[in-house]
C-alpha cells in the first residue's frame, strides 16, 4: 500500500481540532460539522452532522451514548482506512473524541477488521499516549465532566460486519447479522443506547473541519459531496495505491493519475459497486454521480468482465450473513447465471429473469450487502450489453 498523493490530513495540526471543539458547546460542534456538509466516507453517504444530531437528541435513559469507529474495512479494492490507521491513527481517535463531546458519549469503540490485527499494538500505544496526555479519560483537556475513553475490538473476518448494525451485533457478542432499521443505531445502537457508527475516514476529517472550519471543507468538492476523498486505486494501472482527490474528480482523471489510461472499464465502489464503461469516464466521482466508499478497480483491455462478475458473486455467496432470503439465495442464483453466461448457455429469457432477480435483491434485501451485491452484474448487463449479448446462444 503506497500513498501516492500528499494527504491534506497529514497537515492537520495535532489536537488543534479537539481543542477548538472543546472551546465550543457541543451544539456548536454539531452545527459546524453539519455546515461542512461532510457525508459518510464508508460509501453510504449519510450526512455526518445529521447522524450526530439524531444521536445527541435521542433519549439515553441511563445517560450512555457510544461512538463506534467502523474500521472493518472489508470492501474488496479499498485500503484507505488501513492507510489512515497506520499513518495517522491519532487523527482518527481525535475525531472520535470530538464526536463524543458533540453527542455526549462516554464510551468509544474501534471495531478493527480481524485481518488488521497487526495494527492493534500501534493503536493501543496511541491510546496509551493519549490517555497519558489527558486527551482521553476523565476531564479531557481539563474540561470538567468530559469523560471519554476508547477501546479496541477485533472483528473475525466477516465482510458483513462492516454493515453498522451487524457490527453492533458482533460487538454485543452475537452472530454478525444486520438488524432491522427502525430504530436506527442513533436511537438504539450498542447495548440499546444511542450510538453513532462512523467510518475511519469520516472521523479523521472531523479534526480538520474543527481546526480549519466548515467553510474550508465545504469549499472543496461538489455542492452535494464536500471535501476531499481518499481513494484506493488498484487493478490494471501502473501506480496502485491510496490517492486523495476532491470529490468531483472524473474517472478519467483517476486513470491518468494512476497510469491506467487504456482501461476497458472501471469498477467504482468495489465488489458492491458498479462497472463504468469507457464512454462514461468523463463522469464524476461523487455521491450525486458515481458513489464509492473508496474502491476504484481498473480493468484493462484483456479482462473478461464476466470473470470479474463471477469473482464478486462468489465473494457475496460466501459473505452474505444468510439471514434474508433475497441475499442468501439470490446470490447463488446470480452466480450460476454468470457461469452459464460464460458457458454460453444462458438464454435471453433467463438473462431477463436474472436481471429481475437482481432488482428484487436490491429492493427487498435486509441490508446493504444484499441490496448492492447485484450492482456489478446489473451494470454489466445495462452498460456492456453487446459483450453480454454475444454470450447468449442464438
Amino acid at each position, binding site marked *: 500500500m503506497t500513498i501516492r498523493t500528499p494527504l491534506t490530513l497529514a497537515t492537520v495540526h495535532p489536537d488543534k481540532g479537539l481543542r477548538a471543539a472543546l472551546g465550543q458547546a457541543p451544539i456548536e460542534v454539531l452545527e459546524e460539522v453539519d455546515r461542512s456538509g461532510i457525508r459518510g466516507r464508508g460509501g453510504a453517504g449519510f450526512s455526518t452532522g445529521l447522524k450526530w444530531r439524531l444521536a445527541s437528541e435521542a433519549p439515553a435513559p441511563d445517560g450512555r451514548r457510544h461512538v463506534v469507529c467502523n474500521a472493518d474495512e472489508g470492501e474488496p479494492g479499498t485500503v484507505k482506512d488501513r492507510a489512515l490507521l497506520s499513518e495517522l491513527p491519532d487523527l482518527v481517535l481525535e475525531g472520535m473524541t470530538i464526536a463524543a463531546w458533540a453527542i455526549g458519549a462516554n464510551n468509544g469503540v474501534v471495531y478493527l477488521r480481524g485481518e488488521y490485527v497487526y495494527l492493534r499494538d500501534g493503536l493501543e500505544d496511541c491510546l496509551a499516549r493519549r490517555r497519558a496526555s489527558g486527551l482521553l479519560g476523565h476531564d479531557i483537556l481539563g474540561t470538567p465532566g468530559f469523560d471519554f475513553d476508547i477501546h479496541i475490538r477485533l472483528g473475525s473476518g466477516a465482510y*458483513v460486519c462492516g454493515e453498522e448494525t451487524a457490527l453492533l451485533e458482533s460487538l454485543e457478542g452475537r452472530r454478525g447479522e444486520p438488524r432491522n432499521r427502525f430504530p436506527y443505531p442513533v436511537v438504539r445502537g450498542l447495548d440499546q443506547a444511542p450510538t453513532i457508527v462512523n467510518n475511519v475516514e469520516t472521523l479523521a476529517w472531523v479534526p480538520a473541519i474543527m481546526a480549519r472550519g466548515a467553510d474550508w471543507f465545504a469549499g472543496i468538492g461538489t455542492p452535494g459531496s464536500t471535501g476531499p476523498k481518499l481513494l484506493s486505486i488498484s487493478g490494471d494501472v501502473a501506480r496502485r495505491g491510496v490517492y486523495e482527490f476532491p470529490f468531483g474528480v472524473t474517472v478519467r482523471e483517476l486513470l491518468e493519475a494512476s497510469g491506467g489510461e487504456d482501461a476497458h472499464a472501471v469498477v467504482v465502489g468495489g465488489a458492491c459497486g458498479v462497472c463504468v464503461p469507457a464512454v462514461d469516464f468523463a463522469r464524476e466521482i461523487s455521491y450525486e454521480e458515481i458513489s464509492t466508499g473508496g474502491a476504484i478497480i481498473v480493468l484493462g483491455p484483456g479482462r473478461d468482465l464476466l470473470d470479474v462478475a463471477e469473482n464478486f458473486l462468489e465473494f457475496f455467496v460466501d459473505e452474505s450473513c444468510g*439471514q*434474508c432470503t*433475497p441475499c*442468501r439465495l439470490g*446470490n447463488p*442464483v446470480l452466480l450460476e447465471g454468470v457461469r452459464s453466461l460464460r458457458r454460453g448457455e444462458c438464454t435471453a429469457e433467463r438473462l431477463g429473469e436474472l436481471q429481475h*432477480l437482481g432488482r*428484487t435483491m436490491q429492493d*427487498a434485501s435486509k441490508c446493504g450487502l444484499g441490496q448492492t451485491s447485484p450492482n456489478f452484474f446489473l451494470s454489466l448487463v445495462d452498460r456492456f450489453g453487446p459483450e453480454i449479448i454475444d454470450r447468449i446462444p442464438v
Partner: protein
Amino acid sequence: MTTSIPLPTEAPATVGATVRATINGREVEVGSGTTVLEAAHACGVSIPTLCHHPDLIDVGVCRVCVVEVAGQKNLQPSCVFPITEELEVSTHTPRVAAARRDIIDLLLSEHCGDCRTCARNGTCELQDLAADYGVDHYRFGQRTEPVFVRDDTGPSIVFDPDKCILCLRCVRTCAELQGVWALGVTGRGAGVRVTTFADLPLSSEFCINCGQCLNRCPTAALTAVDVTARVRAALEDPRKHVVIQTAPAPRAALGEEFGLPPGTPVTWQLNTALRELGFDKVFDTTFAADLTIIEEGVELIERLYHALVLGEPDTALPMFTSCSPGWVKFLEHGFPEYLPHLSTCKSPQQMFGTLIKTWYADRNGLDPADVVSVALMPCVAKKFEASRPELTDSGFADVDLVLTARELAKMLRQQGIDLPSEPTSDFDDPFGTATGSGVIFGATGGVMEAALRTVLELVTGEPVEDLYAHADITPVRGFDDVRLVELTIPDAVGPVPSLLADLVPDWDWLRGVTLRVAVAHGTATARRVVEDIRAGGRFAGCHFIEFMACPGGCLGGGGQPIPTSLEIRKARARAIYAEDAAYGKAGHARKSHENPAVQRLYAELLTDGPGGATSHRLLHTGYTARGTFLPTGQKG
C-alpha cells in the same frame, strides 16, 4: 381469602399518540409504533408472511411481507416497519408482487421434498404461498436430492433440514418461549443452517421434546414422530386388546382439524369415532388426573407437615408439579439440584398406563402382554415420556404408543370419519366417570386449581363452592406468564377424612396458614421462576408451583393442531373450562376426590391409601439428573 399479587409485565405498554396510515387507500388510525403488518390486518388488508409468527419477536428475514412505503427508496418488511408518523403503504403493487414472486421462487429453490409425500401436505405455509402466487415451475431450480442427514433418532421429534427455509421460527421459539436454546444457527451465506449444539441429534441434546418448534415450523423441517402405522397394526391384530385414553386438551382442539372454529369441544363425538376406528375401550385420562390430584395433594400435605410441624428444614419446598414431561426433562437438564422438589407422582398418562396393564388387565382376565395401551395427547414430549425406561412398573411399558391430536385426525380422515358429525357416546368403565377438575388439567393453572379444590375441601371440611363460587378458583386461571396467589386457610378446619387418617392426626397445624402457590407456563418462564427460587426471591417462599412446559399448558402442546396463537389457545381454554362447568351443571363431580372411580380404586387396589406403599410402587417414579448441554449417558 385470596390475593393475587400482580407481577411486573415485561415492558409497560406506552399509551402514546395515535397515527394515521393509509394502506391501499384504506385509512386506519393506529397507536404509534404499530407495525405496518398489524395496521394492515386492522383494516382488513392481508399481507403474506412466513418468518412472522404471532407468538414470536419479528426478525424480518424472509422478506415475503415486503410492501411499498411512500418515501422509502426500497421495499420495507411490513412485520418490522413501525408506523410512527403518517404513512402511505401499498401492499400489492406490481413491484411488490414481482419481488414477492422472486422471493417465493428462491425459497422453493432450497426446499427439498415432494409435497405429496410430506407430513405437512395441506398445512404447509410455503405450499400455500406458492399456490397464492401462481408458482407454476421451479424458476430458480429445485433441490431434488437431500444434502443433509435427517434426524429421526429420537422418540418425539424429527428434524429434516432439507425442508428448512431458514425462517428461524423454531430457533426463536426454542429461545424466546422455551428458554431451551436447543436449536441455533450456524454457517453463513448459502451455507447457513439451523442446527443443534455440536451438530448432535436432538435426542442427544438438552432438548425437552416439547415440540413447540414443530408447532411453529411453516414446513415439515420439524415434525413429530408418527406412530399411526403402529397403532393401525395393533388395531388390526386380533390378538391385541387395544385401549386408548384421551386427554382433555386434544379434545378441545381436534375439531380444528375438521374445520370447526378453535374452542369447539368434540369429546363425546370422539368416543364414538375411536370405537369405529377399532379401539376396544375408550378411557378418559382425566380419571388419572383425578388420581394424580389425590396422590400429589397428599404428597404436598406430607411435605408441609414435615416442614411446618416436624420442623425438618431439608423438606423440598416449594413442591413442583410433575405431569408435564417437557418441564420434567427441562429440570433434569437445567436444574438437576431441584429434582427433589418435583412431585414423585407419575403424570396422569403414566399412572393410567400402569393401571391399565395391572388392575384393568387383572380384572378383565387379560394378559398384559396382549394389551396395547395407546394415549391421545396434546404433546410430543409424552412420546418421550412413554419411552422412559423407568416407567415400566407393570412389567411392560406403561404406555405403548402416544398419538398426537394431529396423528389421530389423520387416522380418522383415513377411515372416512367426519368427527363433528359423529354421534356422541360416553367413556368406558371402569374408569369412565371423570370430574371437571381432571378436565381443567389441560389448561395452565388447571392442575393447581384442581389441587386447591381438593386440598381446601379436605382441610376445611366445607364445600369449596362456599369459598369460591362454582368452585372456580379464578386467580390461578389466565394466560399471564406466571401467577402467584396466596390463600389463607381459615381458622375453622374440619376433621381429617378417613382416607387420610394415617397421614396426619389433625388439621390444627394448618389453621391460619397462608399457602403460597404459583403457576408458570412455557419453560422460558419456568427458567425465570427456578432462577428466582435459587436466588432466594419471592418464589422461594412458595409451597407449591405448577409448571407446564408449553405456553398455555397442555392446550398449547406440541401435538396440537397447527397453527397456534394466543387467540387459539384462549379459545381452547374456554372449551376446557366450559366442559368443567358442564360437569357441575349435569350434577357430575367437579372435584377429584369425589370421583367415584377413584374412590373405588382406593377401596379395591390402593388399599393402603394415598401415598401408601402400593401407590408408591405403581403411581410414583424418580428422576434423572442430565447434563446441562448434553445428556450424561442418558438417551434423551
